[in-house]
């Protein structure tokens, strides 16, 4: 391949827009392959994800896929899951980016994150039909996801009035883990009910973290509705 596409590859996502000027595909080849793999997973499922189909969908040669992903099918699958999880988080952060206060941000992160997941056709298909194929890959990327959420929350904790002795990094880690847990499973909480989400976040997740208690959740019952 040309020197230019090699350069594009190194730039990754950020270099994507620049090559459109040359009349080439606006996306970096590697990214294009991952996008194609995610789309392909949506139509064929993870079990029948084949390099040939991914290459065709991405409009590249089979050999190009193997050059970028020497591990073939396994590597494409694993990286496509991580890639899609990252895209999901970026989309979620964009949805809640204008919310200034920590409690509101956590509430919307949980509520909108669940809606976003429910609307995501590929995630839904794979979760419904072959969770056993998704889970190993997800658990590979889980520590990365958890670190990304923690790092996202950290500045908001640093800006908040915390209980004396609270380490913002540790508290961000705690909250990130909880949010991810609630994106995976709602448990005894009715997370479609905004009041329940308020109770969960304000009276439970943040109870030991914020010094000046945020406005308590509406109503007087602070427990999950079961």
């Amino acid at each position: 391949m040309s020197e230019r596409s090699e350069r594009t590859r190194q730039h990754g996502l950020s270099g994507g827009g620049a090559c459109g000027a040359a009349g080439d595909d606006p996306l970096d080849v590697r990214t294009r392959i991952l996008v194609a793999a995610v789309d392909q997973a949506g139509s064929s499922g993870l079990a029948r994800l084949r390099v040939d189909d991914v290459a065709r969908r991405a409009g590249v040669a089979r050999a190009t896929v193997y050059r970028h992903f020497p591990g073939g099918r396994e590597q494409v699958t694993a990286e496509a899951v991580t890639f899609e999880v990252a895209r999901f988080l970026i989309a979620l952060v964009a949805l809640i980016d204008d919310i200034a206060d920590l409690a509101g941000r956590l509430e919307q992160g949980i509520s909108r994150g669940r809606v976003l997941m429910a609307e995501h056709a590929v995630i839904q298909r794979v979760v419904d039909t072959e969770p056993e194929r998704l889970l190993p890959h997800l658990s590979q990327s889980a520590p990365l996801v958890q670190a990304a959420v923690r790092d996202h929350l950290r500045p908001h904790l640093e800006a908040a009035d915390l209980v004396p002795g609270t380490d913002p990094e540790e508290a961000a880690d705690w909250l990130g883990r909880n949010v991810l847990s609630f994106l995976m499973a709602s448990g005894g909480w009715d997370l479609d009910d905004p009041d329940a989400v308020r109770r969960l976040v304000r009276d439970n997740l943040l109870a030991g973290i914020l010094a000046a208690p945020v406005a308590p959740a509406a109503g007087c019952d602070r427990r999950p509705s079961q």
Partner: protein
Amino acid sequence: MAPSAVVTTSSQERALDAAVELVARWGVTKTTLGDVARAAAMSRATLYRCFPGGKDELFDLLAQREVARLLGAVADAVDAAGDLPTALAAGLHAAARAFDGHAALRFVLDHEPDLATAVLGFAEMDRLLRVVRRALAPHLVRFLDAPDAGWAAEWLARVFLSALVSPTPAFHLADPEVCHRLVRRYLAPAFAARSTAPVDRGTVPSHAASPPVPIH
């Protein structure tokens, strides 16, 4: 049937004891019913009579039994505690210790993660959280009203699963100090805000005036 009350016959128990040893060494995938029969010193015919559903039934029952045993260890730790923060921290630590000491569960998580879907994945995680609530809430009603007892049990399970999926030093639950710190900092304050003393059924705080919800 609640896994805390998994009903098995003594032949089934013998087979499950043999199977758990085999899984610890070879994993679920490589263990055959023939291996289990040999290790349990029973004929294959007897083994099939114990588990008409074959290997799937045997391993379903085994998973239920081992989860129930782990929850039993947690319940014992909770029962021995004198106050809620101690109960939660001891329960968390007991779960981590029981899991770490369980070679079969560890093998599956490390080498056959696709099989762990039954525990960690989405709808299955909701099912596991229900199982934990049902098993542990009765041990926490000494300290909390029924809905909060269920929630506290669920919260412990979430913390435990998060530590399993993303192990970091700050979440190293095998260290009792870590469990105590997490509970003291993040879990206990949520419940302390509800009431300052263990709930006395005679003087239910006003916010808990609604009738206790049965835990199912």
